[in-house]
């Protein structure tokens, strides 16, 4: 069983997946952020490898990517953060990036490097389903889960196919749109979680992301049947407002992650 699935099996209640952009604002500072997120108790760390043209991301994560690229972050640097995280605490690490940086290295070579760094899963939001199947085989052959995404526009047939091909968990995009913290979770997000849950139940854990920024959002999606809530932009926004290594800001991130995780567990 994969490390990610083991984690889901071992906890009581919902899980919290926390996103950190590798290299934002620079390598050292992002390691600090990852440590704060770990101290806050994140169940999975999602590490972003910055890409110049992130079409699935909203302003916050785009800006984080720009900061990371400006400070010279390379994919290998982010994999080094992954292996540091794995040595610090045994939580699953999932890397998220777009297909082009993976293609530039070659998918097999990229996945080899990811495995050597202890990466447990990969998320590639612009990989079409047909290619995601092949890519998933290459990943799983290396013990790495390939996490696929489903969206509000995903119909029943396609949902079945995606659920059958994802591993680790299913990443459900809760809104039509891009990543970004939102004030309110819409009613149809909850309906969507229930709909997806009908396909994932008993097969694969269901993670819900995009727009989740408050403990009540976490409670709502877990309450509707999700196994994990995924928070990204809200953390990235906190990083944006701090200077490298500032303890107080890192403390705020840690406290925020803790509150989100408590919400996940207590839902």
């Amino acid at each position: 069983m994969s490390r990610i699935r083991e984690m889901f099996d071992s906890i009581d209640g919902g899980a919290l997946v926390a996103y950190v952009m590798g290299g934002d604002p620079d390598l050292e500072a992002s390691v600090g952020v990852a440590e704060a997120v770990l101290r806050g108790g994140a169940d999975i760390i999602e590490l972003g490898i910055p890409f110049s043209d992130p079409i699935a991301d909203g302003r916050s994560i785009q800006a984080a990517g720009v900061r990371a690229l400006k400070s010279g972050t390379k994919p290998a640097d982010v994999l080094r953060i992954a292996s540091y995280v794995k040595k610090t605490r045994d939580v699953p690490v999932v890397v998220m990036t777009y297909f082009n940086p993976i293609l530039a290295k070659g998918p097999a070579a990229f996945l080899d490097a990811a495995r050597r760094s202890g990466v447990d899963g990969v998320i590639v939001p612009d990989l079409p389903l047909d290619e995601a199947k092949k890519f998933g085989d290459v990943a799983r052959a290396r013990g790495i889960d390939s996490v696929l995404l489903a969206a509000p526009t995903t119909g029943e047939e396609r949902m079945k196919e995606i659920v059958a091909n994802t591993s680790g968990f299913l990443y459900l995009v809760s809104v039509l749109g891009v990543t970004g913290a939102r004030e309110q979770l819409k009613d149809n997000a909850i309906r969507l979680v229930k709909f997806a849950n009908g396909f994932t139940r008993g097969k694969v854990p269901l993670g819900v992301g995009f727009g989740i920024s408050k403990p009540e959002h976490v409670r709502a999606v877990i309450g509707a049947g999700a196994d994990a809530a995924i928070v990204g932009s809200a953390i990235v926004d906190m990083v944006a407002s701090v200077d490298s290594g500032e303890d107080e800001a890192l403390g705020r991130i840690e406290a925020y992650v803790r509150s989100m995780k408590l919400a996940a567990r207590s839902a």
Partner: protein
Amino acid sequence: MPEGGRFGRYGGQYVPEALVAAVKELEEAYRRFRADDEFKSDLAGLLKNYAGRPTSLYFAGNMTKKAGGAKIYLKREDLLHGGAHKINNTLGQGLLAKRMGKRRVIAETGAGQHGVATAMACAALGLKSEVYMGAEDVERQKLNVFRMELLGTEVHPVDAGSRTLKDAINEALRDWVTNLADTYYLIGSVVGPHPYPVIVRDFQSVIGREIARQALSAQGAFPDALVACVGGGSNSIGTFYPFLRKRDVDLYGVEAGGTGEDHNAATLSYGRIGVVHGMMTYILQDEYGQIGQTHSIAAGLDYPGVGPEHAYLKDTKRVAYVTANDEEAVEAFHLLAKEEGILPALESAHAVAYAMKLAASMKPDECVVVTLSGRGDKDVQIIGERKGFES
């Protein structure tokens, strides 16, 4: 349409899951309307009466003499409403959007030519339009921003990334994924996820079809060679497509050579295979897959990707892709102005520059057609500044 939206290995639909339903919907709608007689006759009417088709195929006698080789003809897309070939596509897609029941049209633009053509088509068709434009381009192309606003379009400056065309496309894709139900994304070149490269090619192929007809009536034969500039590649694919199977017609795509090997927008000449804007194609990128800044004196060629069908035509060698640099384009601009009284767009001037060399190497009984994709009024200031005039 090509199998799975691929040209060989290129193209495809590299989009987030939320957009998959949208590209499928578009594929379905396009399949239906492209064969619909009413759609076809509506479009033909607009192209004739609104845009000004057919455009002429002009024998450039003075340029021919100057080159001292093959006869040079100019396909005058610069005479179209709006001053460029872009209107062929915006009218076609605008009509498609309307048939699909979409009320809101979004588009990206670099220099602003596609934005202006979108604004015109949408005004004529009664559609609401919004255009994304890199903040850097908004600064550089104030006049086109004003033109779009006069035509009733809202222009959104894009501050993200490198603040240029590629970022405007990213932003348009983000808007589309957020507003799928009522929004049509009207892409301006043969780029993006399938079916866009096919749709835009089809709407621009009117250029090549007219060339074939006009060349036959002018000299009783097809041209020996066709030359067109390649940025994203819409005017060139429109020129080439009807001739792809006519093997004795040589095809030349001219990319922007910029100021040299490290400073250009010649994607097919210097790029590597990758994925951007929903398609697999050649891309100017660094070794880590980050997509970089490009450079060309012609803003309309300043794009780090290229249409996937061009990538395929390069690999199969059906089209020869060559470059003309900034300086050669400017020279060709001046030459065409003085010899023929035509100010070409700097984009098109790249094609003119190469065509002059090509014609010189050919025989007098042979014939070269150059697609003049747009007029150069928009570039007068750039030329002026380059000459050191007060602007």
